[in-house]
């Protein structure tokens, strides 16, 4: 079993009309044994910026702590919140620093930029950014998620419809993956 599949995870983010949604599963496992059913994978950086971290849980938690640290310093120095695009560049740089001993995480970043324009992106464990206009996925259930999102996604959905769509996509995908599931957390901003 690969190190990325050790804990199991499923993450998805979608763009709507002046809003975004980010969702994750709640299972934390040790290989095939389930150890927790309320594990948090999505974290708030500020009111308009959320980051989800899939992959190895310990790396996800440590990486989250480092990102919060960097963002707090940025807020103190620049007296403003980080834009999502800027945050994505920062995450990419932090991941690449560990190029030859990486964090075993795949982040999913979702936020509202200038004039509340939704921004989503994902990257691999060494910081290769992947921007998308519609949806991004990560985790052990990513292949199912790609299929589900591709068929269920419509552009410019209102928050209520976006919530329904992302939830259905998440639930149907994790049902086909033994390493993720046990419910979901959904944030719509």
């Amino acid at each position, binding site marked *: 079993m690969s190190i990325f599949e050790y804990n199991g995870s499923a993450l998805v983010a979608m763009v709507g009309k002046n809003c975004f949604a980010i969702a994750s599963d709640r299972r934390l496992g040790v290989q095939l044994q389930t150890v927790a059913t309320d594990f948090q994978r999505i974290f708030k950086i500020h009111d308009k910026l959320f980051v989800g971290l899939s992959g190895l849980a310990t790396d996800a938690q440590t990486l989250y702590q480092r990102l919060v640290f960097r963002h707090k310093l940025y807020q103190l120095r620049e007296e403003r919140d980080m834009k999502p695009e800027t945050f994505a*560049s920062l995450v990419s740089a932090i991941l690449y620093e560990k190029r030859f001993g990486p964090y075993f995480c795949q982040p999913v970043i979702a936020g509202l930029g200038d004039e509340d324009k939704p921004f989503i992106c994902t990257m691999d464990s060494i910081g290769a950014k992947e921007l998308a206009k519609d949806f991004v996925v990560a985790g052990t259930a990513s292949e199912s998620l790609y299929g589900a999102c591709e068929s269920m996604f419509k552009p410019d959905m209102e928050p209520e419809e976006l919530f329904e769509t992302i939830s259905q996509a998440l639930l149907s995908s994790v049902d086909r993956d033994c390493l993720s599931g046990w419910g979901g957390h959904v944030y719509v901003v």
Partner: protein
Amino acid sequence: MGDSQYSFSLTTFSPSGKLVQIEHALTAVGSGQTSLGIKVIPVIAAANGVVIATEKKLPSILVDETSVQKIQILTPNIGVVYSGMGPDSRVLVRKSRKQAEQYQRLYKEPIPVTQLVRETAAVMQEFTQSGGVRPFGVSLLVAGYDDKGPQLYQVDPSGSYFSWKASAMGKNVSNAKAFLEKRYTDDMELDDAVHTAILTLKEGVLTPAEIEDYLQEVE
């Protein structure tokens, strides 16, 4: 920074609580060529910006004036002019450019003026406390434009920095500042500011013939 044999600072407090080396550095600045800056924020946002100007007096007519660059660019939105020792300013310009590029590389965003000024000032302060080095003999006027609009900062050898609407440094600073105080208005236009800058430099700096030339160029 500095030799390992010099692990003690050369800038130490006098009994009166002053850092004499910094005072001397400011004297070096005060005998340097005049430079000034004027910030312009009129009602029409399109016409705002910052003007920086300096006297460029070369030691002889044989000097190739095109090779002398007193006003330098730090980023596409930030420029700097100095009063004091030219070589010291070059070191600071080099360091500041690197810091600006590092920020750009990390955040893929141009550095805000305040952040660059902060980091440059931190470098200048380092040199008043590190072992074996002396303070920089320059004051910088950093002029830039970012999300917060046009900005003008002065950075001193001590590492302190101030934001100005209009300021001058170097020789004749008291005359220049008095002139600016009288002439500065909040609703100045960019062309007015350029004009005012040239007229301020005129106060005891340029010869009447040179002023004619520059005024004609501006028109």
